[in-house]
């Protein structure tokens, strides 16, 4: 059983780093090199999944030292699902961007994107809060550079604001790390979880780290930077920012919340839930008001991120599973939506919603993708989004906090309103005709495929739930409540 001994998780970090370097060294071959790397990463993640299924949660001591002196990597069901999400979305984005970028842009896109992928994989696998800081910075800088790739005043300003916010978030997080390290003499999450006890320094660290991460996750009212950055980026970049990058800081927050800050208390959890509910409503309303398609989708990300935080006051395994399901199905659906918007922009040269001008006749696959993704975002069966909301609703009723269900339902209605608005205009004739440009087939099909993934997530529920339970990331039946 040699293949079971290969540290697949480590490979999933090394390969994109090596890929980034080779794309940088030989820019003319960036595209094939990048695609080969993307495929190899998918294989590594599959290998890790197999390993986890066979052997349970894995810990890997980099350098052989082991925590607390060295840095540990850790993989359980939660890690695996995040890596799988990254792999699926990443592969889709890699294929999509073959058609999207011209030669000159592609040469810059590929190394940056490979670095971003490496940062994501390293982040999801890390079990060390200082190492997480380094991966966060790697992630942030790669994301900013990718936003700026679009060029033009909007994208540059969006990227600049994003960079400032990202650095501020990281610094808050780092000061929290400093306080935790100097309180307990370790930066390993498991070691900290054993040693942690309530003290002023820990509360300060918790406040700083949670604030920093919320800023990066763009939870209302700290979302102000997100729409401009996500909407002005090139389409594949918008997709990966909305689908993956904001989820990374949420993942860290979730880990810290579950492991290091279990004493945080109900009040803080209620506050996060309230902000989440406010984000769902505010994001939905703002999305309805937008006149540009990409801006609309970006505001919908603000709303969808709100759902993730509804799980905090519920604090049950069902609740966390629901939040994780929101995360996964939103990743697939939002990728599909941004890809569809990218196709429309590529085709017509603009993304004004009222001037979509029967675009469905020219791009039927794209509009199908948009509508299918919309089904998942609204939370209609049989999509992943439906399962997510169902789980959250169940957790809300079981914990006797039915009022969170109102936010779920209102959010769904708001999403339905804007999805139908966009689809409606796609069928309507407008005064401004398109200056049509043919969209590469690969771009249309990948958008559709990602939307199909979002729907399929609703059909393979038991299988995914079984993966999620490897290593019990949310605690056993008794301890998580």
């Amino acid at each position, binding site marked *: 059983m040699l293949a079971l001994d290969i540290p697949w998780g480590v490979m999933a970090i090394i390969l994109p780093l090596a890929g980034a370097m080779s794309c940088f060294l030989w820019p003319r071959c960036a595209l094939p090199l990048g695609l080969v790397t993307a495929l190899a990463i998918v294989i590594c993640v599959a290998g890790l999944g197999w390993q986890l299924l066979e052997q349970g949660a894995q810990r890997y001591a980099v350098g052989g030292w082991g925590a607390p002196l060295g840095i540990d990597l850790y993989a359980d069901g939660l890690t695996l699902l995040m890596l799988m999400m990254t792999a699926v979305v990443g592969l889709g984005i890699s294929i999509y961007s073959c058609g999207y970028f011209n030669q000159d842009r592609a040469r810059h896109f590929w190394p940056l994107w490979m670095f971003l992928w490496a940062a994501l994989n390293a982040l999801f696998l890390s079990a060390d809060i200082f190492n997480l800081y380094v991966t966060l910075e790697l992630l942030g800088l790669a994301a900013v*550079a990718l936003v700026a790739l679009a060029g033009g005043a909007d994208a*540059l*300003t969006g990227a*600049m604001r994003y960079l400032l916010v990202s650095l501020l978030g990281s*610094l808050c997080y780092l000061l929290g790390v400093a306080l935790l390290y100097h309180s307990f003499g370790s930066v390993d999450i498991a070691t900290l979880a054993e040693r942690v006890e309530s003290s002023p320094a820990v509360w300060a660290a918790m406040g700083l780290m949670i604030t920093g991460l919320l800023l990066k996750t763009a939870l209302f009212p700290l979302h102000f930077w997100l729409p401009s950055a996500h909407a002005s980026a090139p389409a594949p970049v918008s997709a990966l920012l909305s689908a993956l990058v904001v989820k990374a800081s949420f993942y860290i927050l979730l880990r810290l919340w579950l492991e290091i800050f279990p004493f945080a208390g109900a009040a803080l959890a209620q506050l996060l839930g309230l902000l989440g509910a406010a984000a769902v409503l505010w994001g939905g309303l703002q999305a309805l008001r937008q006149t540009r398609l990409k801006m609309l989708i970006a505001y919908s990300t603000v709303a969808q991120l709100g759902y993730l935080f509804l799980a905090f006051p519920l604090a049950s395994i069902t609740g966390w599973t629901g939040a994780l399901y929101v995360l996964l199905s939103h990743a697939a659906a939002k990728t599909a939506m941004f890809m569809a918007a990218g196709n429309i922009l590529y085709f017509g040269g603009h993304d004004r919603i009222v001037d979509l001008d029967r675009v469905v006749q020219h791009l039927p696959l794209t509009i199908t993708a948009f509508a299918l993704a919309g089904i998942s975002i609204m939370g209609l069966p049989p999509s992943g989004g439906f399962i997510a909301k169902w789980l959250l609703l169940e957790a809300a009723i079981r914990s006797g906090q039915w009022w969170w269900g109102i936010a779920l339902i209102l959010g769904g209605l708001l999403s339905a309103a804007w999805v139908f608005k966009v689809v409606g205009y796609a069928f309507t004739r407008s005064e401004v005709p398109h200056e049509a440009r043919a969209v590469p087939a690969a771009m249309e099909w990948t958008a559709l495929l990602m939307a199909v993934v979002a729907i399929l997530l609703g059909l393979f529920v038991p299988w995914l739930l079984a993966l999620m339970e490897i290593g019990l990331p949310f605690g056993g039946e008794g301890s998580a409540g």
Partner: protein
Amino acid sequence: MIPAFLYALVGVGLFTLGLYALIIHAHLLRKILALNVMASGVFLVLVALAARTQGMPDPVAHAMVITGIVVAVSATALALVLMLRVRIATGRAELAKEPLE
């Protein structure tokens, strides 16, 4: 022991001063400098509290600061070049409609 805490308090002061400047100033160069001041504050806290040992100070915190400095330098370099590009594209080294102000 006392100096360690004194320096750490100075670090906290730098962090908050930097945060104040980051919010107050509109010019991007000042914002970037403010973030650098904040970073210095964090590094000072990290490194000062490492001296609470009997003999040699804790080397792990020192190594973290070196890592942090390189990260900060890289981020600052990117931020400065981005600022210049924003200036060329919009004519101003400021963010339009800064929501923080």
